[in-house]
């Protein structure tokens, strides 16, 4: 039952996801859910550790908490975007912060989307799936692969 619910689309299976969060339970739950769904998950407790792991592991996606001790999630996002090695990663802010400007500031810092805690597993899974799919589509187009047969013949 659970398998059916949690499967990513086959193409996303094995995608690397880095979870940056100082809250242990949040990381644990996210890891359980994502690993079960077939993703490769690694964790970081601070922004600095997150950046280092992102450089080492080149994840397809980074889930980043905003209110981290030391370097905050926005700064992490800016640095991920600024570095060519990590600039392609999809960044989802996952935060307990609420407020009119939180979403806008996250987008300005380079995040692709924002989820407000508490996040339901279904919501998280859905967001990850759709962003990974969007990322794959974008990469295919960047690589010059035809998106329609007509373009191919041109």
């Amino acid at each position: 039952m659970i398998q059916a619910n949690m499967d990513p689309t086959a193409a996303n299976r094995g995608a690397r996801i880095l979870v940056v969060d100082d809250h242990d339970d949040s990381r644990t739950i996210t890891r359980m859910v994502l690993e079960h769904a077939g993703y490769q998950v690694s964790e970081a407790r601070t922004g600095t550790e997150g950046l280092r792991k992102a450089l080492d592991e080149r994840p397809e996606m980074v889930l980043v908490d905003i209110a981290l001790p030391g370097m905050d999630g926005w700064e992490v996002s800016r640095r991920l975007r600024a570095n060519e090695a990590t600039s392609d990663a999809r960044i989802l802010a996952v935060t307990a912060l609420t407020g009119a400007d939180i979403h806008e500031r996250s987008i300005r810092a380079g995040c692709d989307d924002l989820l407000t805690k508490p996040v339901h597993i279904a919501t998280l899974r859905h967001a990850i799936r759709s962003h990974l799919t969007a990322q794959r589509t974008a990469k295919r187009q960047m690589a010059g692969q035809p998106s329609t047969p007509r373009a191919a013949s041109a």
Partner: protein
Amino acid sequence: MSSRMQELWPLSETELKPALAFALAIEHAPMGLLMLRDDASGTLEIVVAEGLTAEQWERFGPQQPGVGPVGVAYAEHRHITIRDVAQDCEGFQDSLRDIADCVGFRGLDVVPLSLGDGTVIGAVAVFFRGARRPSARSAQLAERAGRLLALALDNARLRAEADRRREDAEALARARVQFVARMSHELRTPLQSITGYIDLLSLGWPEPLTYRQGEMLERVRKSEEILISVIDDLVSLARLEAGRVDYKTGPVALSDAMAMAEIVVLPLAQQRGVALQVIPDQRNLKATADDAKLKQILINLLTNAIKYTPSGGSVRLSCREDGSRILVDVTDTGPGIPPDKLGDVFLPYVQLGQQVDGLSGSGLGLAISREFAQGMGGELTVASAPGEGSIFTVQLERHAEEPAWRGALAPSVAQQ
């Protein structure tokens, strides 16, 4: 000015100097003092002087009510004129001459600063180098100037006080928003653990739940959802009270807003055994409103009505027009509200009657709804009587349709 006087009379030199200059100009005097009452010590303190050295100012010093020309003018509310201290101190102590020598005056004129209601806030003393022979008319003019100055200074004080109070209130509201935002963050973080584990368990992980366990977990989830909505309400209200909510108003079709609210509250109505009647809008009414906030208001009002209506009762949602306004009514067949409680229903943190089983909330829904309605240029009112149910009415600005001819005319107007 001492800090205590600055507190009592929050006036700056740029406000005080012209006041004294005005009195000097009226009396054609070269020097003078403006003194204001120090409520704490009961004396009159110099707040600004013209034509006096620091030393002379010091020598003059604070004045006791009833003592000396300034003290008497103040205490007895009367205009004191001393023509020539060298000739006659006119009943005042001879020590006045020492001060006159020190300051360098012979004529002296003191006008009390009295407000219309009989209170005196201080006095203006002006000094003449020579002897003084004031006419009745100039004396009258000086008294009028005194009253004008008193009013102006008192107004300036009231305004400064009001500004300060408003700034204090704004600072408090900002602090509250920050506090609530921080609390919200601190509460949401552990809620992530609760939500996450509830989700995992109810997905049958690590092992399938028994029926009873599933039922219990469902109750945990319901409580958690209430907790989240209470936190959201607290944050919303703090932001509303601090004026930090933006309204994106535009034309909103009433039928859409009503249908949307109906979808959200229908499960609750069914669960509570309350008939939900939505009277369709046949006239395609449009209001000027913030779409999301209007829906939130309707959801809040309907939820509230359903909560307080006993099983078998009904809740009705309808809309009508009234001149330039559009009115949306939420009518219930609940117990109604006693007249002495009607005024309280929109107050935050007030909930009437007992908590309804399993449907507790923050008690902020109506307060937030009214803030939203007012923020959109509308209003939220209630009419009710015990035993006769309640009607909550949202008043909104009717959206003014642009007449078709204006659109057709616009290009040619622009060209002219």
